[in-house]
């Protein structure tokens, strides 16, 4: 049996599409499969968020959904999981990929574009030191960082205290305008800039994969505030935007509705099968980009490896900030994702990273439920309070997680979540430090608002099959090739050797691009 394709890529998210570009550009025959069966809800806000809320009689269709999607997800950890426009992104992932969890929030996507359809758009580059244990030429990776950064479009370029931390400014667009609350925070920070280095605190613009200048068909952000609900300008990057561009290459083919269940090796070619479809495809190389959890299960199942693997995730928490001076400020249209970010050094080995967001584009229900009072008065209180509030999040490095992934005898993947013992103390330290620091900037970290989330709530999964210079079973080589499965490469988060506190999507994409480029030289 000869293979129909040079490369089959499983998954069409940020990793899969990034790996595909160098391959199709080199003229190789590439098949990309994903398991999307139905598209998202067509009900989206037609006007900027505040105008839609005030005037749109049918707003319930995009806030709750005609099938009352949001009400079936009342316990979901993030408003993203409740948005009808995102329902198809998360739907059916755990059942389809047979992921079982214990004390762990396991989220993934079968949709075209994967989780990037509903991400926070946070991007950052990792320094060379993070890859020092691997025989990887950092210049190669840097080239990949540049390629994917320019392709996706990043805003936030400004000379500030986080320029070196993000390391993306040379490839970025100018930042988006700050809202009044964030501007005030930044002004206060700048005015007292001498006091913060001693506290290990740096504040700066968030670097986000959101356009402040148009690229191709995508328009720049117009601050309509619909980030959570559906950006009509497509200013927010999603890997699904890549498909139309990839399809312009003659060697590229995209098949939807194909859920890879198993791999078969036959005459030097890899065949993928879907239990629900009679169709099967074979390729010389197979790239797994189904998302860390799904990729891990597929690889382990074919290896028949049932030993536990560590799964990295970032312990995370959220909090509410109040700027009392801005009480009574009117609601104004604002960008809904991270506006300002911070890096806070907690110990020698642990830095916390976080961003703050406007509360305007969020459903207030999220806040009402967290108030220690009756709902009627919570609504009344928040009505007056929330326009002077920001929400923030904190992430800690992945080495502080203690999750394991094990292949069960029935072929399912069991994820058990846990933290390293020092996490509660680190989180308390982070809370105390942030309270002090924000107080200096004229903001109150609201009492009882600092909430630590369950393991996995960050949805930054990585490192189950880490790249290693001398890989053992359960590891991959520097090209993500799974030890024991020659020709099968992991190109998503599963092959990252470490997970820092920073957003890891851009690194996954850059690494996938690097592997894609290396494979071109191997295959030609």
């Amino acid at each position, binding site marked *: 049996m000869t293979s129909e394709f040079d490369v089959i890529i499983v998954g069409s998210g940020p990793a899969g599409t990034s790996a595909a570009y160098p391959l199709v550009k080199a003229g190789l025959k590439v098949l990309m499969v994903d398991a999307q069966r139905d598209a998202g809800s067509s009900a989206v806000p037609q006007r900027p968020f*505040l105008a839609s*809320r*005030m*005037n*749109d*009689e049918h*707003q*319930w269709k995009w*806030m*709750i959904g005609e099938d*009352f999607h*949001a*009400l079936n997800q*009342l316990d979901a950890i993030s408003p993203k999981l409740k948005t009808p426009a995102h329902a198809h992104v998360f739907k059916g992932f755990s059942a389809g990929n047979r992921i079982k969890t214990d004390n762990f929030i396991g989220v993934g996507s079968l949709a075209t574009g994967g989780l990037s359809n509903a991400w926070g758009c946070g991007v950052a580059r990792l320094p060379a030191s993070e890859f020092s244990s691997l025989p990887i030429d950092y210049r190669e990776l840097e080239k990949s960082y540049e390629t994917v950064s320019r392709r996706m479009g990043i805003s936030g370029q400004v000379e500030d205290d986080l320029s070196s931390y993000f390391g993306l400014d040379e490839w970025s667009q100018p930042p988006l305008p700050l809202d009044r609350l964030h501007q005030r925070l930044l002004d206060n920070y700048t005015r007292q800039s001498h006091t913060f280095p001693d506290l290990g605190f740096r504040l700066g613009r968030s670097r986000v994969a959101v356009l402040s200048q148009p690229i191709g068909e995508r328009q720049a952000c117009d601050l309509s505030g619909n980030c959570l609900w559906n950006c009509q300008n497509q200013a927010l990057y999603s890997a699904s935007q890549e498909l139309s561009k990839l399809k312009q290459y003659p060697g590229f083919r995209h098949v939807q509705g194909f859920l890879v269940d198993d791999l078969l090796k036959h005459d030097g070619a890899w065949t993928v099968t879907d239990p629900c479809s009679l169709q099967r495809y074979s390729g010389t190389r197979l790239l797994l980009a189904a998302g860390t959890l799904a990729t891990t299960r597929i690889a382990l199942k074919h290896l028949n490896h049932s030993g536990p693997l560590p799964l990295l995730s970032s312990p995370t928490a959220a909090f509410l900030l109040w700027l009392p*001076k801005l*009480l*009574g*400020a*009117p*609601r*104004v249209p604002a960008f809904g994702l991270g506006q300002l970010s911070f890096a806070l050094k907690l110990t020698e080995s642990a830095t916390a990273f976080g961003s703050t967001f406007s509360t*305007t584009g969020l*459903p*207030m*229900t999220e806040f*009402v*439920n967290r108030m*220690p*009072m*009756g*709902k*009627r*008065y919570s*609504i*009344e*209180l*928040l*009505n*007056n*309070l*929330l*326009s*002077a509030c920001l929400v923030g999040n904190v992430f800690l490095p992945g080495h502080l997680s203690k999750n394991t992934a094990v292949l069960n005898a029935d072929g399912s993947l069991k994820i058990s979540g846990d933290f390293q013992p020092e996490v509660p103390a680190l989180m308390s330290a982070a809370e105390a430090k942030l309270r002090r620091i924000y107080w200096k900037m004229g903001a109150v970290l609201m009492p009882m608002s600092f909430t630590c989330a369950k393991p996995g709530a960050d949805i930054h999964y990585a490192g189950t099959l880490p790249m290693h210079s001398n890989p053992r079973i359960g590891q991959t080589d520097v090209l993500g090739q799974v030890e024991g499965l020659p020709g099968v490469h992991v190109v998503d988060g599963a092959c990252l050797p470490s997970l820092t506190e920073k957003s890891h999507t851009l690194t996954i994409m850059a690494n996938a691009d690097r592997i894609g480029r290396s494979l071109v030289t191997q295959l030609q």
Partner: protein
Amino acid sequence: MKLLITGATGYIGQQLTALASTRGFDVICATRRPCSTAYSWVPYDLLGPAPDCPSGAKAIIHLAADTSTGAHMSADDEVQAAQALIQSAHQASAKFIFISSQTADPAASSVYGLTKWRIEQAVLAAGGSVIRPGQVYGGPEFGLFGVLAKSVRQFPFFPVFMPAPRIQPIHVDDLAVSILAVVDRDDINGEIFNVGAVQPITFTHFLKSIALYRVQAIRFPFPVPVVLLRALVLLLGQTISTRLGLERIFSLINLPLMNTESSLTKLGIELRPISHGMHRSGHGQRRLLIQEAVVLLSYLLKKPARISLISRYVRVLERANKTCSIMASRLLVRWPILLTLLDNPNILKTPQGKELSWRLQVALSIAEASTQGATTFIGTVQPRSFACAIAALGFTLVKELAWHIPKLVVRPFVCRLFLNSEPARDV
């Protein structure tokens, strides 16, 4: 197919004739006064001769009884009338079905119960069927149910007999269905069917349900020790007591419990919950859900919710197969703000509160996702002065704190006061 029904213009009779005729029966009413022109009529009085049963009649259903408290006719007359009817049915080879009473007993304290028992014996001996209904309610306000409904409507208080008698209610339409089930079944001969709620409820609960679902008014309980009533009977003597209806109360108090489960199973009857049956329509579910939606949404929005939001709430619940309301108080309907008493974690975390908590969440999301909710939730798009905003925050906090006192006071019984535990019991 013909059905001859005595007492067809009475409380049960009216509902039965209507149902029978919609089911395609040719109904003949055997009554003293002419019935509706929709049915055939033969004149019949319990004191007169039995009407001729037309040939081809499927059954005679004997509902007529002397319910007057005065001594209009003797017990023997009633038994004789029944025997004549049995004879008539026999001649036309029709079934004979007698609607008896839960009080029927050879040792009954009332003449009424004893008479019923005597007729039962005659019916069974002739191979007929007997149906003993529990407390019949619902539909038009006739019979004992009518008396009770009228007095609940009239007086601000309702009596709570101590100890409380227990009754097994059955909706008049469910009874009609049961009777026709017996008519339809050819394998049934000489049997007694007990029909009524499987789990008895207290008479107090029954009166409360009338107040809540039928009359829809707030009525206060008024304790009446049974001992006092007995003393009253001794004082007034038997005749006056009977005339005052005290005898009826005692037959209620001495009511023997029936095992209704096997009869209901055999007839394939499922009784409606009392909260639904009490409504004029006989189906209160949707109406109560709407009421619940009104309460929850106006509690959150602080003003009456638009109809579109209410119907959305009802749709969500019906999709989730939750067709029963959990609110059990007119007070809440009148003052939705009273929900504040229930809306605190101590109560929402209890098993009973969890359902309320979920429904509050649903109402919250629906309330927010509307133009009406936008102003309540998002707040102003106009700037306000700092002092104004501070004052508003302070005022909210004062209100929240002020509610803590009543919350604490009513906490032990607030669930029982406002929440319906009935859906669980009906299941």
